[in-house]
């Protein structure tokens, strides 16, 4: 595992197979897709930032990299992807073996280029707040204070705008000093850019440019007309604060048997069009704060009648939700518009009920937006997350904008697609595979919003059909990837990060060992989770459990060590050994067992899964559990009900929730107040240790997880029990040890699962 982590540290890449199966057939038999999870903006210490433009291959546009073959005499370099010979330009004339440009240093397989000021202006990021007002006063109060805090933290140069909505959409003209002023749009209609241009008087006194206008200053909008709505944070802080301060509940009356009329879709449409008019192509985020379901206009998810419940997974399965597909279609359109403009949609959904995250997912995910789901605007999950977005600290998000991601690969490797927060630019090339998964059919993707943790899952297709004969020459065993990410850095300037990797093929008999040696089971688990989620959303009648089981069995069957038909002989190499456990937990996870959650929650979990790196994904799939006791230092323990003991404290990190679980005795002692008595400092420390560790996790995680502190047998203990392997249940033969616990479930335990797996893996049928 260590070497994979090292590789990740260097380039931000994890691959399921670090040694590639050499032919299409081999790849298929490997079961787990050849894929990589790449974190384009992973902070990597010592990555040089070169103040000049990269040198590109004139054939395939790949960038000069350490794997290029350089002829110092002839001043020529050979592109490793297409083998094109390229001359160095004049400014590289002094190149020699002793005088290499940084991009040729072998250790700089990942490197950044920064546009110099002449090549591109620095544009400040834009934040457009879109705020729901259909809430009870208390929630509005929470939201106001959170927003006020956010306003304070806004980067000075950034531009800010404000839209509020309820029955109608109000675009606040912050640049109008005399009165609070806002444009009011009907909640039942989408607003196109053309309408915004016309209705908000952007072209008064100027001839309108010919049709097909994109707008923005380049197309003749005056800076003043834009500055009516988007102002530097430093200039409009006062106005913004006073408008926020005066925010009131939507004034339109709501009958007692109805939901508030809330036009989330129209508001987002207005916001998108406004940004499209004002700042097309430059970094901007729409930050939507939504406190309930949309009931009005486009994107409505439920009717206003309270007697009609909001759709559940069951309803979705039955297809009895007419509004759902209409809303999804609307948000798909919105996402296209946003992607076209390069703008991000962030969603802060805080309500006890669902608000429509499931419908909005497409728009948020394709634009690389952030999503936070909480029960209330007063909840720390929301408040702290919002603060984290703007606060600069060692863990800041490094929000970047307007990224474009491109891939170059050696011949015979193609890209099926990306599962992650990006949108296909539909740039189909020789590199695009016929088989498509996620955002495919292209070799370039738009990432309107990306940050340090944004991780893309690229799924590859091995196109090579050659037999083993081709594999003789060592050179041809090597092949290359180049990941290029152009983006607007959070400081404003445009950058390009280039990561170039080399891997090798193996084929033929005996290649199994080599393949296994290159298998990254954590990455594989993360990829399997993304793939299964994707399939569940897109394929009708898909049975995820069955699919996962079959995949696992086939994998074990291919790579396990066993004698046919002899389950007891089965063993797995350490490279594979915990993979079944990941699959066991994945089967039980919220990603697969969706019926315990609302569609909104599922959408939320999946969006997080799809944007996090391997480590965090693994935590989501299989939470980590640490035990604290007097007997030993804190130690990770098995995610099993047997970990529970009366004199232990458990810290469960399931990514979205962190649970501090006090064993019965610990809880009694704590309730008796020993921790504050002299002589019991050790107990105080014991109590404190998991809290500190939880805080450490919380501090670096975004969105901020929910912290649950509970005691054994308390009601909140369910947050822990739900995640544990039910090795002891109410009908187990062996009772739990004293102080232990049982889980009331009929789910199979891991042991039973493994038994079945072994039995099936050794069957002939699966090999």
């Amino acid at each position, binding site marked *: 595992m260590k070497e994979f982590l090292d590789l990740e540290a260097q380039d931000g890449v994890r691959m399921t197979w670090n040694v590639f199966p050499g032919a299409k057939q081999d790849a298929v038999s490997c079961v787990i897709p050849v894929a990589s999870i790449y974190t384009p903006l992973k902070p990597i210490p010592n990555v040089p930032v070169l103040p000049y433009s990269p040198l590109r291959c004139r054939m395939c546009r790949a960038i000069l990299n350490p794997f290029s073959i350089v002829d110092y005499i002839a001043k020529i370099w050979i592109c490793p992807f297409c083998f094109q010979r390229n001359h160095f330009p004049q400014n590289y004339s002094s190149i020699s073996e002793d005088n290499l440009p940084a991009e040729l240093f072998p250790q700089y397989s990942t490197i950044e280029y920064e546009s110099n000021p002449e090549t591109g202006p620095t544009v400040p990021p834009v934040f457009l707040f879109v705020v729901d007002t259909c809430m009870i006063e208390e929630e509005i109060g929470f939201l106001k204070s959170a927003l006020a805090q956010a306003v304070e933290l806004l980067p000075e140069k950034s531009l800010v705008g404000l839209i509020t909505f309820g029955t109608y959409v109000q675009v606040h003209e912050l640049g109008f000093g005399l009165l609070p002023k806002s444009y*009011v749009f009907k909640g039942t209609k989408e607003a196109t850019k053309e309408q915004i241009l016309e209705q908000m008087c952007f072209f008064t006194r100027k001839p309108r440019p010919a049709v097909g206008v994109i707008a923005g200053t380049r197309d003749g909008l005056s800076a003043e007309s834009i500055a009516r709505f988007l102002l530097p944070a430093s200039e409009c802080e006062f106005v913004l604060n006073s408008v926020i301060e005066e925010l009131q509940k939507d004034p339109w009356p709501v009958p007692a048997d109805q939901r508030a009329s809330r036009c989330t879709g129209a508001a987002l449409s207005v916001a998108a069009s406004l940004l499209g008019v004002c700042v097309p192509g430059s970094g901007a985020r729409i930050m939507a704060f939504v406190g309930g379901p949309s009931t009005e206009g486009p994107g409505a998810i439920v009717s206003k009648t309270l007697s009609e419940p909001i759709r559940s997974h069951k309803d979705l399965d039955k297809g009895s939700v007419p509004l759902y597909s209409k809303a999804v279609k609307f948000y798909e359109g919105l996402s296209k518009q946003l992607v076209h403009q390069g703008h991000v949609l962030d969603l802060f959904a805080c309500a006890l009920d669902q608000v429509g995250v499931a419908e909005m997912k497409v728009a948020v995910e394709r634009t690389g937006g952030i999503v936070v789901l909480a029960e209330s605007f007063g909840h720390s999950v929301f408040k702290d997350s919002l603060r984290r977005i703007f606060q600069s600290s060692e863990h800041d998000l490094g929000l970047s904008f307007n990224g474009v991601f491109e891939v170059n690969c050696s011949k015979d490797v193609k890209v099926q697609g990306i599962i992650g927060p990006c949108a296909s630019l539909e740039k189909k090339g020789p590199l695009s595979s016929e088989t498509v998964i996620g955002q495919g059919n292209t070799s370039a993707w738009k990432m309107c919003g990306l940050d340090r943790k944004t991780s893309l899952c690229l799924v590859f297709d091995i196109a090579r059909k050659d037999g083993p004969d081709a594999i003789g020459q060592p050179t041809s065993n090597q092949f290359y990837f180049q990941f290029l990410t152009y983006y607007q850095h959070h400081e404003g300037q445009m950058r390009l990060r280039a990561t170039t990797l080399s891997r090798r093929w193996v084929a033929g008999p005996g290649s199994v060992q080599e393949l296994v040696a290159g298998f990254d089971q954590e990455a594989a688990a993360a990829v399997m989770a993304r793939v299964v989620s994707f399939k569940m959303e897109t394929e009708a009648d898909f049975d995820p459990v069955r699919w996962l089981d079959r995949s696992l069995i086939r994998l074990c069957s291919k790579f396990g060590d066993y004698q046919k038909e002899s389950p007891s002989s089965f063993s797995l190499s350490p490279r594979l050994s915990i993979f079944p456990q990941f699959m066991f937990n994945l089967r039980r996870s919220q990603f697969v067992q969706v019926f315990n959650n609302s569609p909104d929650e599922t959408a939320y979990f999946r969006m997080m899964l799809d944007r996090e790196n391997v480590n965090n994904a693994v935590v989501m799939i299989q939470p980590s559990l640490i035990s604290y006791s007097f007997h030993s230092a804190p130690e990770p323990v098995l995610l099993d009900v047997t970990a529970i003991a009366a004199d232990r404290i458990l810290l469960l990190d399931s990514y979205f929730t962190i649970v501090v679980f006090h064993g019965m005795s610990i809880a009694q002692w704590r309730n008796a107040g020993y921790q504050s008595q002299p002589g019991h400092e050790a107990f105080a420390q014991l109590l404190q240790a998991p809290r500190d560790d939880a805080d450490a996790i919380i501090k670096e995680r975004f969105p901020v997880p929910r912290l649950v502190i509970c005691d054994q047998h308390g009601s909140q203990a369910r947050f822990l029990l739900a995640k544990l392997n039910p090795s002891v249940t109410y009908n187990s033969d062996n009772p739990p040890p004293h102080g232990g616990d049982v889980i009331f479930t009929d789910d199979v335990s891991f042991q039973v699962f493994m038994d079945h797996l072994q039995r099936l893996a050794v069957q002939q049928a699966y090999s």
Partner: protein
Amino acid sequence: MASAPPGPQRPRPPFIPNPNTNTNPNPNPSSLPDSFQNLQIGRPPPPSAVPRGVAPPLPFSSAAPRPAAFPAGPGPAPSVAAAPPMGPPGLIRAPLPSAAPPQSHVVRPFPGSPPAGAPSSQPFAAPPPTAPQTFSVLPPQSSGPFTGNPALAGPPNSQPYMAPPSSQPFFGTPSSQPFRGPPSSQPFSRLPSSQPFMGPQPPFSGPPASTAPFGAPAWQPQPRPGAFPGSVPPPVRMPGIPLNAQNQMMPPPPPAMGYSPHAGTQMSTPLKIDPNQIPRPMPTSSVVVFETRQGNQANAANVPPPATSDFVVKDTGNCSPRLMRCTMNHIPCTGDLLSTSSMPLALMVQPFALPHPSEEPIQLVDFGETGPIRCSRCKAYINPFMRFIDQGRRFVCNLCGFSNETSRDYMCNLGPDGRRRDADDRPELCRGTVEFVATKEFMVREPMPAVYFFLIDVSMNAIQTGATAAACTAISQAISDLPEGPQTMVGIATFDSTIHFYNLKRASQQPLMLIVPDVQDVYTPLQTDLIVPLTECRQNLEQLLESIPNMFESNKVAESAFGAAIKAGFLAMKSTGGKLMVFQSGVSMEVPFFCEAHKLLQPADKTFKTMAIEFAECQVCVDIFLTTQTFVDIASISVVPSTTGGQVYYYYPFSALSDPAKLYNDLRWNISRPQGFEAVMRVRCSQGLQVQEYSGNFCKRVPTDIDLPGIDSDKTIMVTFKHDDKFQEGSECAFQCALLYTTVYGQRRIRVINLSLPCTNMLSNLFRSADLDTQFTSFLKQAANSIPITPLSQVREQITNLCINILHSYRKFCASVSSSGQLILPEALKLLPLYTLALIKSIGLRNDGRLDDRSYWVSHVASLSILLAVPLVYPRMISLHDFTSKEDDDISLLSATLPLSSEHLNDDGIYLLENGEDGLIYVGNMVSPDTLQHLFGVSSLDGVPNQLVLQQFDNDLSQKVNEVVNEIRRQRCSYLRLRLCRKGDPSGMFFLSYMVEDKTPGGLSYVEFLVHVHRQIQTKIA
């Protein structure tokens, strides 16, 4: 004008004889001479001294002629009531056996009709019998020497006519024309009994020029209408305010006004012919007291004084004629009779007309929960003409004849006279007009609050011309005149290509501005708080009004979304209804840019009409203030106010200098005048007649009723009738107008206005009791209604034909045999030709006007009252330069009106002409710099803008002029838009276009017109 007399006067003695010979309708030979004398009366040179009768109807005729009269002895000092004059008339009368029944005092006998059998009556002069007038027109040739210019030439001196005629004594009909006899003359008498004087005017014969003799009408000195401004109920203030000090009120007008507004009208007629002859308003300040009903019987003689005169009404059974009057004071028994007369049968209903200050207020009757007593069949309201029978146990409805049970609570015994014993104690049984408290049954919801929503154009044009600032200032000042109390609510919005609402309900915070950008599909941004009780938002509102002009200072939006804006305003007030006041400057985006010219007088499309009907259904009344400098398509826009009971105010071309004061005063009067909301009106009439049509500013959704989201003291509704059965001679025809409305203080009321008129089978009665002003107003409205749909030339022809047909009918059926050479006019309608001429030369019927001006005229006329209709067409002109030399008070200054003929304009004179809307000040090119200095503060008018702000300087002339102007404003309830017209410049030409008696390129002179009319009648008779 006072001077002029001489010329015309020249009496043509020669004529005199003729008259005699003539078979005048008015028979007396003797009359002729008399008539002359009468004429004199009119003429008294020193106007002051002379009684002026301003009477409406003057018979008179031709242009030239007045002559004779004056010369007559009496001339000089026809003292007031002077006996002499009387005499003559008397004589005349006598002979005239006109049908005219003898009237007791008030009566005007009506001259013309000989036939009527018993001339019994009027032997005496005293009674004001009016004489019919005959004129003899000289035919054809007006071309003769004189003709051409009678008017012009005429100047001062003497008889222009005379001279020429040399050849022909009479009009020269040199040529072929046989000549008609001398003009017959008409004697006529003056009548007002009460009036001391009567100026009988003799008929005279027309001078060579065509005309006929004309008689001076008899006028009665009319009470001066002037009163009304004063009459406004106390709370109301009149708009007339000096520019500079807008807030100050002028002192109340003198209670009795000495002059009658319509004096102006009068003069017109005769002037041409002989300025001296023109009857003038009487200086007397006495006001006629008119009892609406005498005894318990309909009395044919009880004809109300002319609408434009000054009178005090005593409601003794019929309603005040201010509230409702009929085109004729006898109702023809049959439809045939009516059509024979060619006269219109219509009521002018002005339910909130301002009373004279000394009249009793309308009484309020509360029947408690049962509501007002009504006929159970036709639902007519109890009124003095319902007959109680059977010891009071039953009453018979005077409208449908149904016999109703009297409810026990309302029972009362009858007295020996057959009336209920309590009749005099119950207003509903003894007053023509009462108000009932409406019960729940009359409400579909709680009475609405008084809601005022202001909508202001802030597009670039409006801002730059100062229109926005003017509107804001006006509103800001006017809000203090809104009715007090929690029931008063206000809202405001501005608009350019988008609509901006303001949330005013934000204690201690600035108003919130909410923009509705989607003008294709408008909506209100809030459901509440856009319209807020005035008490809660006054400060915010004032502050906002102050800042609006600044806020939009640099607005670059050129379009204004008028249609969307009113729609949005409407939506904001939809739930309550109320008044929507729109201040619009720019061209509305919704109006199609170009239309064919002839279609422009019709609304461009149905959108506005549809919208307007929706507004009316929700009780929203729209008033539009057009402060514009461009074409705005009033034809389209005015549909909205005219359907919702509102009106259009037009300031073109808008001047930031002179118009804000008018804007303010108009707005102020608009909100402070007596008015009602969410009204429904129905007019019922006795069986035998039925309502044919309503006309005015309202919305009609069911055939019988009209809906008036707003109704106020300035609005008049015309109701025409047709026969569906016969009446018995001697019976009465009753009219009842019931207006259900909500007061500005939120009380629901029913105002019931009753009029019962005698029926007659005699055509002569109809002519004798014809009401000129009312008939003329009816013609005016008819013309206005047809302008949008008929070519102008046809409308003019129609109007001329109406006049001809009536006169023809009179000539044919009522006038005694006479030579065909005489033009004979019924006394009551003697001004009809002049008014008709003025009408076909008015802005609305002229070919050369701007489309918007014409459309405005049409929309203005639609709701115009009788009182203002006459001056609109036949304005009042007075001279200003000689004010200081006169000692009279304002009122008599005002009554010294000049005929509308350029003959009366001197190069060294300054004249004021006013029609209730505009005031034109005409300055001759020889006016002394001193006078200019006194009046305008400059010694030369070069560079003085035409849109005048009349300042008051510290000198007698300036003060007097200002007083007079303010007096006019008060009288008209309208702040005149003053305009400076200079001789020899386009503005001077504009002024001259009001000289309706002049010959114009496209129109006849007055004299020519009479000839034309006469010829047409002759043709018909032949």
